[in-house]
Structure formats: C-alpha cells, structure tokens
C-alpha cells in the first residue's frame, strides 16, 4: 500500500476557483517526488492539503492509511510532527540564533530539555551548519538560512519532508547544494515532496515528476524531466 494517497481530490476555493481537479496520486515510502507546473497549477494547494492546512472539497487523502481529511482538529498537530515543512522564504525567527530556531521545533512539542540539545546538534550537523549554531539568521547567507530551516524541519525525524519552492530565493550553485542535502535526507529514508519551478534542477535529478496544470494531473514520470513547456 502506498504511503501517501490522493483519491479524486478536488479543492475549490470560494467563490469557485478550482485549485485541484479530481487528482489521484500515490506516493510510496522513501520516494523523492517533484511537483511541477506553472503558477496556479495547484502545487501549493497540494502541499497545503498534505499537511492539512486545508481540507479537500471532495475526495480522500490518506497518509499511512489514515484519512487526514477526517482528522479531528486536536489530531492535526500530531500529523504535522511527522511532516517537516520547508518554505521558499525560510521562515526563521530573526531574533533567535540558528540553534534556538531549530530547538524551538522540539520545545513546542514538549520534547524533554535534556534531549533537545543533542538532537539539535545532530540536525545542524546533517545540514552542515554546526559552526553556525550561535549565529542569527541575518548573519547567514541565503543557502545557510535554508539549511537552518531544513534542520528545523528534520530535527524531529519526520517521515515526510515537504518543500515548497525551497530554492526559489537561491542562486543556482546554492540551489544545487540544497538539492544535494534534500537528496541525502531522502536516502536516509524520508519521503521528500518538493514543489518547484526550477526545470534545470528537475532535469538534472532524474526523480519522479508529477506535473500539474490547472489543478489536473498532466504527467507522472518515474524518472522525469520538467518539460511541461516542451
């Protein structure tokens, strides 16, 4: 059974903007999936549905066999503890150090303080920021800030990492480094789902590509290239 399943998912925003239209997709455990398509194709909606920022208008979404549309409000936080999220704009808290930013993710889910330090250190090591722990976000480069954000997303060892345009604000060289990092994380068993516009990255990685257009699935290639413009 697939790990993440979308069954005939439709999302309509009021008044009647259809963001996703009857989308069915399955993603297995440990996969690396690119979500591509022009702006407004439904990539962000797909991601918001995944961590239940939104619920589908019609259809069913299962993660690990559980319907997440039917989750109770009080269960949503526990779903999110299994999903790491990375954004284009990093969303680090500027008044805190890198270490504090990452530790925050553990503190607010009430991990015991004794565990927090080693786990944060390990996460920073994984993203190669151990020597930046005491610095503030504004002292870091864009790539380093995104690494800090990724450290925060993986510090709780989520089974899924969702990234919405994580390289959108970065130059090509830095983007490649971030992609290498995401690939490493994926090798260690985390399912990675990344929405992106960056066709060069998609083409060079040869991963599964799910292409959306106007909310519909237009292509699903095992080792795909971007190519919706082609």
């Amino acid at each position, binding site marked *: 059974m697939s790990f993440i399943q979308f069954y005939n998912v439709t999302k309509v925003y009021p008044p009647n903007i259809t963001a996703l239209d009857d989308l069915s997709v399955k993603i297995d455990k440990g996969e690396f999936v690119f979500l591509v398509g022009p702006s407004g194709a439904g990539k962000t909606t797909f991601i918001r549905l995944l961590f239940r920022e939104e619920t589908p208008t019609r259809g069913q979404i299962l993660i690990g066999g559980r319907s997440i549309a039917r989750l109770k409000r009080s269960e949503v*936080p526990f779903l999110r503890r299994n999903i790491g*999220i990375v954004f284009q704009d990093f969303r680090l808290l500027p008044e805190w150090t890198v270490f504090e930013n990452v530790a*925050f993710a553990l503190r*607010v889910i009430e991990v015991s303080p004794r565990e927090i330090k080693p786990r944060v250190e390990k996460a920073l090591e994984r993203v190669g920021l151990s020597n930046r722990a005491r610095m503030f976000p504004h002292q870091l480069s864009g790539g380093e800030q995104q690494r800090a954000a990724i450290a925060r997303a993986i510090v709780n060892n989520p089974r899924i990492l969702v990234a919405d345009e994580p390289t959108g604000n970065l130059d090509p060289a830095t983007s490649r480094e971030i992609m290498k990092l995401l690939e490493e994380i994926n090798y260690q068993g985390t399912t990675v789902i990344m929405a992106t516009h960056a066709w060069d990255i998609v083409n060079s990685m040869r991963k599964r590509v799910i292409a959306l257009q106007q909310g519909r699935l237009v292509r699903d290639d095992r080792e795909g290239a971007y190519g919706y413009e082609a």
Partner: protein
Amino acid sequence: MVMKLRTAGYFFRQAALSLWRNIWMSLASVASVAISMFLLGAFLLLVFNVNYIAANLQSNVEIAVFLQVDTPRQVAYQVRDQVKAMPGVTEVTLVPKEEGLKQLSQQFGGQEELLEATGGVNPLPDYLRVRVAVPETIHEVARAIANLPGVEKVNYGQEVVERLFAVVRWLRWLGAGIIFVLGLGALFLIIITIRLTVYSRRREISIMKYVGATDWFIRWPFFLEGLFLGLVGSGCAALTVYTGYNLLLTRAGAARVFIPLLNDRGLLLNSVLSLVAGGALVGALGSLLSIRRFLKA
C-alpha cells in the same frame, strides 16, 4: 489543555514577557477591569442593602384596619375577634376613635380646638392594629380583612414597600446595564492588549503550528496573560470594595440607626470573591477570543 510542569515555566515566562512589552496596554486593561469590577461590587452591595432595608421595613409594618365611621363598638369587637382568628395573625389591638383622637391632637400639640373645629363630632373611625407572623403573608391577610363587613379601608404601607422594590428593580437594571457596558469595555481592552502580543508573535505562532504544537500549547501563554490582567484588575477592585465597605460600616456609626447597613461578613466576602472570579472570567475570555482567529486552520 493539560500543562506539563516543565513547560509551565515557559508559559509563565512568555506571558510575563508579553505583559512587560505592552506595559501601557496591560495597565489600561487592568485599570478598566478594576473600574468595571469596582462598580459591579458597589452596585451589588447597594442592591443587597436596599433589599435588606426593604425586608426590614416589611417586617416592621403592621396593618391598619379602619372601620366604617358609624360602626357600633359591638361590631368593632366582633371584627377584632374575627381578625384575631385569622391564620398568620399574631396580634390585634383595637384603637377606639376616642383614643385615636387623643393621639391625633397630641400630634398636633394638644389643641382641644380640634374637636371643636369638627363641630364636636369625632370624625375618626375605630381602627385595628394588626401584626402578622410572616411578612410575606401581609398582603393576603390584608386582603382578607378588607373583605370583612364593617371594614372601610386597609392600610399596610404597601406603597412604601412596593415603591422601594420598584427602585431596587430599576437600580438592578440600570446597574446591570452600566456594568455590562463597562465589562464589555474591559473585555475589549484585554482583547486588544493580547492581540498586540499575538500579532507581534504571529510568525512564531505559525511556525509552532507547522511543527505540530497543539492548540493549547500555543494558547497557554496568552491565556495566562489574560487571566493575569483580569485577576490583577478585579483583585484591586475587590480590595477597594472590601476595605471601603468596612470603613463605611465603622464610620457610619450613629447614622446606621436610620439607615441600617448590612453587616454580613460572609456576604461581603462572597461578593468580593465573585468580583475576582468575574475579572478572571473576563481576562480568560478575552485571551481566548484574541487568539481564536490565529489558530484557525
């Protein structure tokens, strides 16, 4: 909404920090809670006291039963005995018209001309002074007496009591209205104060949601902040009302003969405690309302 002990410290620190960062708004909220709760307390005690006075008045009143002027003395005695036999009546005194005239002329300074002025005829009727056991039955008893033959008019100061009760009712509505408006103002100020905090920490809150913090984990610091604002405000009000009323009790001294003040420590304590509870409620409600929108989805 369970709070783990080790995170409690974090919540309290966050709440204290926010209070301090918006110190002027915090003070304004405290003051507004204090003022509305103080007025609530003052009104409560006023209403209790007026009720108390009314109850006193009521238990003191007796029924005055005026017989028809031409009622023979014989019939007067009969009426007296009938009234005496009524359930709930404890005491009946017949005051003959001669006695009544004497009392009246004494009130006017003992002028004998009173009788002369009326042409030598005593214009007064005989009347009965009736006391009842239970004040609440006075209305019934009076009505029953009024139906007896030979009875001209029954008077038991009902108008005074009823007017007093009307005033109390009116006071209650007015007080409730004013307190409602002031309470709403206090609630509003608390909501604004806490919303300032919520707004300044909105990015933190959104990250907390993304990484899977529970709603209550996010709420607690704000909840504590609101509770604190409400408790401090109403605490000030409660203290003022308590000491103020005690001061009134000791200073009023001789005046209390005329206006009996309620001296019931338990009631006073209860009123004051309900003020504190009211303030806490306003604070808690305010904080929950301010964060609600930020927790959605």
